[in-house]
Every structure is written in C-alpha cells, then in structure tokens.
C-alpha cells in the first residue's frame, strides 16, 4: 500500500488543460523527483497534492483514506508543503518562523510544549541555523532563507513533504545542503516529493523520477530509466548523446560538500 496515491488527476484553467489524467504514487521512505520542462504541470500537481488547488477530477488517497475525508488539521500534520518562492511578509526572527511549523500540532489556545520546543531546537540544529536563530528573516542571504523555510516545513514533522523547487537560485553547496536535509527526512521513515530542474541533483538524490510533459506523465521510474536521450528530447527539446559516458555524467554528481 503506497503512502500517497493520486489517480487520474485532471486540472484545467480557463479551458486550458494543465494536468490530464496524471497518476502519482509515493512510498514510505522514498524521495520522488518531479521533473519536466517549464509549464509541464509539476507545480500544479504538487499544489493538488498539497490541497491548495483542487483537481477537477481524479482521486487522492493518503494511506487508505481519501484525502478529502481527512480533517484539515490532521492533513496539515501529515503533509507539509513548501511552495516555490515563499515570501515572508513580516521580519520575524528565524526561530519564530520555524515555530510556525508547529501550528498544526497546537491546540487553539495551547502554548508550545516542551516537546514542540525540542523539535524546533533539533530542526534548527539540523538546518545549521544555530548562529542565526534570533536574526530577522529579511537580513538573511538566499541560502539561509531557503534553509529556514525548509526547516519550518520539517518542524511540523510531516510524513510527507512536498517541496517545490527548494534549490532554485541556490549555489551548488547550498543545493547539496538542502537536498541532504530532504534525504535525511526520508531516511527517518518519511517521504518527499520534490520538484527539481537540476537533472543531476534529481538523478543523484531521488529514488524515483516522474517526468511530466504537457500535463501528462511521459515517464516514471528509476532515474536511469527516465533520463533517456529519447525522453529528454521529447520533453526538454535537448539532445543527449546516447553514450554511456554522457549518461553517467548526467546521473552522477562528481562534486561533494566540504564538511564545515
């Protein structure tokens, strides 16, 4: 039984089809990479899964339950969503933003419990944000901001994390940091769906990839099965030489993060 399953999801906007009968499946402990060219429907699919867009047709299941039957609050505890380009509207401190991640777990009047505090502290430490914990968000660099937002999402201890381009606009080192945090989350028995444009990061960190093109699934499976010259040509209009070395270059990251 898969953890999250979407069947025949369709979505249209002003009669313009965005998703056409897309299936998606996510297992426990798995990191699924959603790839595809701009406008393929990756973000829309993720928004459907997160509940901020409603599919016109299709079925979404979390475990054995239909997603719409699950109360809003329970769903918020189980699925966290990190939208593309999240804006933080007030200059809250790093710690306060990460605390917001606990909102799904709090009673309306309740305060942060000792356990909440403990989760927050460990997330801050994992995200390597200890030196910044009292800094206002607007004084942080892009890489720091991305880690704070991811830490906020992780602070709700979600079974499933839906992350839309979390490494966009980050330098290679910060990209690796963020991907490592996602991988760590999966290794704790949770699952992640991540939208990526960097095919090498996708191939390196994701167990499976789903390639979307014009609102349909073009291919789904292990990175090596999806990132074929044919698929890349059809989806991205790019040519990959059909040689082992070219494919190896695509599937492997040869650089590593230097430990701090």
């Amino acid at each position, binding site marked *: 039984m898969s953890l999250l399953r979407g069947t025949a999801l369709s979505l249209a906007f002003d009669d313009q089809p965005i998703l056409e009968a897309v299936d998606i499946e996510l297992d426990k402990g798995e990191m699924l990479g959603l790839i595809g060219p701009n406008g393929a429907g990756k973000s829309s699919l993720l928004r459907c899964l997160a509940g901020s867009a409603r599919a016109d047709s299709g079925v979404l299941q979390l475990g054995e339950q239909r997603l719409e039957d699950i109360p809003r609050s329970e769903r918020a505890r189980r699925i966290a*969503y990190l939208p593309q380009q999240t804006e933080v*509207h007030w200059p809250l401190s790093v710690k306060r933003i990460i605390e917001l991640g606990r909102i799904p777990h709090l009673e309306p009047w309740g305060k942060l419990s000792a356990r909440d505090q403990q989760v927050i502290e460990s997330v801050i430490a994992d995200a390597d944000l200890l030196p910044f914990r009292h800094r206002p968000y607007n004084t942080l660099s892009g890489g720091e901001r991305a880690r704070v937002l991811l830490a906020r999402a992780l602070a709700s201890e979600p079974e499933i994390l839906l992350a839309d381009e979390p490494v966009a606009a980050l330098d290679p080192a910060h990209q690796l940091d963020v991907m490592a945090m996602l991988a760590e989350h999966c290794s704790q028995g949770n699952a992640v769906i991540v939208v990526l444009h960097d095919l090498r990061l996708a191939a390196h960190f994701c167990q499976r990839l789903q390639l979307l093109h014009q609102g349909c699934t073009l291919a789904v499976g292990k990175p090596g099965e999806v990132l074929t010259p044919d698929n890349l040509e059809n989806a991205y209009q790019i040519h990959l030489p059909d040689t082992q070395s070219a494919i190896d270059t695509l599937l492997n990251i040869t650089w590593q993060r230097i430990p701090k």
Partner: protein
Amino acid sequence: MLGEIRQSRLLGLLVAAASSLFLFSLLFGSQTIPVFQALQETFDDTSSVLALILTEVRLPRALIALFAGATLGLCGAAMQAMLRNPLASPGLIGSASGAALGAVIALYFGSAALSQFSLPLGGILGSLGATLLVYLLAGRNAGTLTLILAGVAINSLTLALISLLLNLAPSPYAVQEIVLWMMGSLANSSMQNFWIMLPGTLLGWMLLLRVGRALDALTLGEETAQSMGIDLPRLRWRIFLAVALAVGSAVSVTGAIGFIGLVVPHMLRPFVGYQPGRLLAASALGGAILLLAADILVRLLPAQTEIKVGVVTALVGAPFFLYLIIKSRRYNQ
C-alpha cells in the same frame, strides 16, 4: 532599534497605561471638579451635580474612547495581518468611511420608529460593503499600491455620498455634521451611545479571539497557511465580519476617527517580534491608549469650541503615514 519584549510584560505595561489614562480621563474634564467628592457622591448614590458629571458625562466618554480605540487598533492589526500589508487599516481600506456612510443613512434617513440599534446596524452594513468593495477591487493578493488606490477610490466615493446625503437630509443641521462623521468626535457622548456600540463591538472582538495563530501562519503566504490547516475563506470572512461589526458599531457612534488602526499596529510590531498573532491584543490596548490620550488632549486644549478628536489623531497619524511612505520608497530603491 527597539527590541522584542516578553508578551506578558508588554501587555502588563499596556494595560497599566490604558487604565491610568482611563482614570485620568475621569479625573480631568473641561471643568475642574473635586473628584474625590464626586466619587463619594457617586457611591453614596446621591444625585449631585458632581456625580452627574462623573457618571453621565465623563464615564461614557472614557468608555467609548477605550472601546472605540481598542476596536480600531485591533482591527487595524487584524487587517494588516490578513492582507499582509502594513498600510491596510480600517481608515484606508474603507471600513471606517463605509461605516460612517451606513450610520449617516440610518441616522438621517431611517424612520424614527426603527430601534436605536439601526444606527450601529447601518454602520456595520456600510463597513462590510465598503471593505468588500475595496477587497474585490484590489484583488486577493493586492500589492500596497493597488490596495491604497482601491481604498482611495472607495473612500472618496463614500465621502462624496456622505456629503451628498447630508446635503439632502431633512435636518438643517445635517450639513454641518459632515466634519463630525469624517473626523470623529467623542464630545457629549452619553451612556446610551456606549450601550448602542457595545454589542457589535464585543461580537467583533469575540470573532477575532482565535484568529491569532491563523494570522501567524499567513506570514508565510496563503498557500503555505492553507497547507498548515488554515481555512482561508473562512478566516477572511471571519475577519471582514469582525471588522464590520466592531468598526461599524464604533464609527456609528464616534464618526470615522482616522489613523489609529494604521499607526498603532506599526508602533507596537517590533515589541511583539513582528508576530501578527501576538500583535492583536497589544494593538487593541495601544489603540485604546492612543484614543484616550487624544481625547484627554482635546479636552485640555484651550479652544473656544472643542477640537474634534479625529483632528488630533490625524495630526499624529498623517506625518507617520508619510514616514511609512518614505521608508517604503527607500526600501524599494
């Protein structure tokens, strides 16, 4: 740089300041009276002039300043948080002028047979109508500029309608009351005025009791807030309704007192670590403090005819507003 203060300590300070100003507003009026004698006579239940001044003139005025000020501060904070826009406030996005329009219709054109609660009801409906109109005009994720433009348009329209209606009103006094509705005044309030505004005000406050956490979540934008379990449409309606109830009731009694809902949340935001939820209570107290202080000032200023309290809040608020504009301009460059 002003820093964050522990919430309990901040609220304690604000409560102390508000209560002192409330007492001060009972002690000092346009005339000096022996206050202790007045208090004694009030508690002895003798119907003396001093007791009358205390209970029928100063008490209602202080109570209305307290409740109306708190309403404006609270609603300003709630709207700024919901629209994630530091310039959203009852005065700028039409809630107050709409309320004044509704109250004007109810007061000057309503039939006398209607109960006296038609006045706050008019205010509530007017406030809701104008606010929703601005919201629809500006769109859900309006930037500051769009929101202000929509607010200016609706404010101008409501103010023009108020002027028109007061010119057409059957009462010859109506025309001269334009300023009263536009600037707001607490002069000559009676306990009856207070009782009229109370139910709507309290109802509005109650609706805002539990929105703090949702407003906190909205800091991260609507999509993230929704994924955190916040029912956005419900939250929006709740806040629009709350603002309409509270601001509509208050403005129908005091007129549209400007700038409190804009200035107070701003001044207090650093002290609550910019957290919208924590700002609500602080801003309510801050609004009460500002209006009580402005009203005391108005009473103590030596003027032939009492200055409208809205003039004082505007004199404080307008420069502050300009400062915000300059600051945001610098920020955008």
